[in-house]
């Protein structure tokens, strides 16, 4: 259903993902999940994959969800959401917002099969990926979203591979809406969620969700780090509507990647004695490529 620009830009606070969850203080994923749930509204079913989000938000007897949620396994949030969507179609119920949510593993690694199948079949489901760039829940192990140079418990010398570009992979399935967002711009994030939910078909939103524990920074810096990820070009903000890249988030003041890397403990090893190692230049190169490719 079409929404006016005013409705799309209104900030939503409905307490549908509320207090009492066991996330670390300053958790980017908790903040993102809260913003997504509120933007979606009460007429929503959340299908949640195992991960930090599930573990901290749904313990018996006090989960922090106030919209109905369904959790099964690590890798099948997309398939479970497909089933819910099929049921609603078969039973002629609805309209309803179905949001499948998962972290990087559940989206791009172990869950890639299910999400690819869901996109290919075109179920009317919004998939939200909370990208904290590692398997955080199990102790900060490397995933396919871990960026170059990051230290995780399974890449103690720094990750040697580049981040998988999931938004573009999603878009290549031919789905009508893909977007990237960060938790620092809550208006933008909620607008994207609302836009996505108004489109029929499979949708994908990729949210950068800093993890204070895994990235090695104070919880209060979560929002600032997102801003730096945007302003250095390492996390480009854009929408892909029917295959075309639009609404690119232009960088206000371009910053060198050091500004972003220096704040995080997981990149500390790149700055021995204050001097940046060669990987930093490679990371800058990645940022430059993003800026060029998306015209940031």
């Amino acid at each position, binding site marked *: 259903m079409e929404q006016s620009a005013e409705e799309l830009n209104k*900030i939503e*606070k409905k*307490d549908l*993902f*509320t*207090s*009492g*969850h*066991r*996330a*670390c*203080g*300053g*958790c*980017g994923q*908790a*903040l993102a999940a*809260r*913003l997504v749930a509120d933007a979606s509204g009460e007429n929503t079913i959340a299908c949640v994959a195992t991960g930090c989000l599930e573990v901290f938000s749904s*313990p*018996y*007897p*006090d*989960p*922090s*969800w*106030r*919209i*109905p949620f369904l959790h099964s396994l690590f890798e099948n949030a997309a398939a479970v959401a497909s089933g819910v969507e099929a049921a609603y179609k078969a039973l002629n119920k609805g309209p309803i917002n179905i949001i499948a949510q998962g972290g990087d593993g559940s989206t791009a690694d172990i869950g890639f099969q299910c999400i690819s199948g869901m996109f290919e079949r075109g179920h009317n489901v919004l998939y939200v990926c909370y990208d904290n760039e590692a398997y955080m829940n199990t102790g900060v192990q490397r995933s396919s979203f871990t960026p170059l140079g990051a230290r995780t418990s399974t890449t103690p010398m720094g990750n040697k591979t580049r981040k998988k570009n999931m938004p573009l992979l999603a878009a290549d399935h031919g789905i009508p809406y893909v977007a990237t967002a960060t*938790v620092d711009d*809550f208006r933008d994030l909620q607008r994207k969620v609302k836009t996505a939910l108004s489109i029929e078909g499979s949708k994908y939103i990729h949210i950068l969700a800093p993890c*204070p524990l895994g990235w090695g920074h*104070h*919880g*209060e*810096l*979560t*929002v*600032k780090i997102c*801003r730096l990820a945007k302003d250095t070009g390492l996390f480009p903000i854009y929408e892909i509507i029917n295959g075309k890249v639009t609404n690119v988030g232009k960088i206000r003041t371009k910053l060198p990647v050091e500004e972003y890397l220096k704040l995080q403990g997981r990149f500390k090893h790149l700055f021995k004695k204050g001097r940046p190692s060669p990987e930093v230049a490679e990371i800058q190169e990645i940022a430059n490529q993003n800026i060029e490719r998306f015209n940031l």
Partner: protein
Amino acid sequence: MEKLPLGLVIDLQQVVPYKTGSWRTLLPVNIMQTPPCTHACPAGNDIRGFLRVLAEKEDYKEAWHVLTRTNPLPATCGRVCPHPCEAGCNRRDFDSSVAINNSERCVGDYGLEHNLEHKKLVSGRNEKIAVVGSGPAGLSCAFHLAKRGFKVKIFEASGEPGGWMRYGIPPYRLPNYILKQEIDKILRLGIELECNVKVGVNIPLDQLTREYNAVFLGVGAQKGLGIDVPGKDAENVYTGVDFLKQVNSGKWMEIGKDAVVIGGGNTAMDCARVSKRLGANVSVVYRRTRMEMPAITAEIDEAMEERIMFRYHTNPVKLVTDEGRVVGILSVQMELKEPDASGRARPVPITGSEAFIPADTVIMATGQAVDYDGIDVQTVDSQWMYTNEHLMTSMEGVFAGGDAVVGLETVALAIGQGARAASAIEDYIEGNIESSLAQPPVIYSRDLNTYYYQKQKPFTKEAVSIHTRLKNFREIYPSFDTKDIIEESKRCFSCGLCFHCNNCYMYCPDNAVKMSSSTGGFEFDLDFCKGCGLCAKECPCHYIQMTLEK
């Protein structure tokens, strides 16, 4: 414990949330701080207060009431104040200061156009206070006392109220009708005014101390001092004070073709610009340079725009007269040596550099003093009045403030002193030890989070052309568009006080920031707050700070 439901399926509306507040080691608190504008304002105006009312509610009426809590003369100050608030404004470090002075004028003018009135806070007190002098100090003192319910009578030596604002500041800076309307509003609080009575001369001071519970002296420094040079008693030689008083009383002064003003203060600038409008070629003679001139920068700039010549390093030695009238000044060039007692470089004459400056009129704006005629209070170095920390003079029950106490300062400072004196008088009458509220700490720009703002051009006022200006004594800055000022007020960062940007409300991952129905702002749900500090970090005005949990 409840029995386990089938499949461990839980009804979400029955959940009792787990209290994560016990995890906390740091606690967010709301701490109101003093913005540097208020800190710099000699009248202690709630600048943040009135600007935020304009920005958030676009309500000029409420803004006027906020501003006039401390400043009963906003339209006046908005025209004549050198605005130290803008020098302190934190926005200055981001792009440029908020145009506070212009906003003040716009709000003041609105109050005049829409006939807004001051309100009493308390009524029906029986004590009587006498206020001597209806300049800004006296008016402010009377204003605050009247609001608190006291009976106040002002004794004014001149024919009309206003003090130096009326008789010193020329109308192109402060139109008479503006001042009169503002004074009338103050008087409508029930203040009695008697003009043409000089206390100490027409009425003895001790009569007032007997008949009134307290007295406030706001007599200003309206005695002009000239320099001691030969020829100073000639006909067309005036002190700055006398010259301005005559012009501002409506008298047309015939000053001839060339006028020379000696001095570097605001009075000198006023005399120069008035003379220009009276049709003369004007030059200002000053023994040091522009850097040492005590006049407000804007005044000097505007005087230069009006093609007044400045002769720096120049000191008059003698006023050359012919048949009792001055025809010119014999002056000598000075060079600047090490600083003297005033802290400014010491001028030393250069021998052999004498020159003659023709002049039909000479105005000596070279200093002012308090007229102590009949007022027998202790002074400091025989110059300004002595007051203790409660603004009481050496006479019991007699208080003082304004130029008479602090020397030649601003309208804003006099207003502030009047307010302090009113408080001190109330304490004196009630027998209280002075009740002073501790001022919250000042917040500086390094503690603000300015990411959320874009650089913007400030509002700037535009003067009418020089040609138009010099034709008359009308205001050189026409009135401002109220919409422009509202846009300008939105530039205020609201340093140290919540302005409902919703950042903390939206950024808390634990949903622990709630809207407070009592304050209209936000409060923290301490059952769930984990003390992560995101709210404090992202608060643009530093209103939220993290402290150690007990």
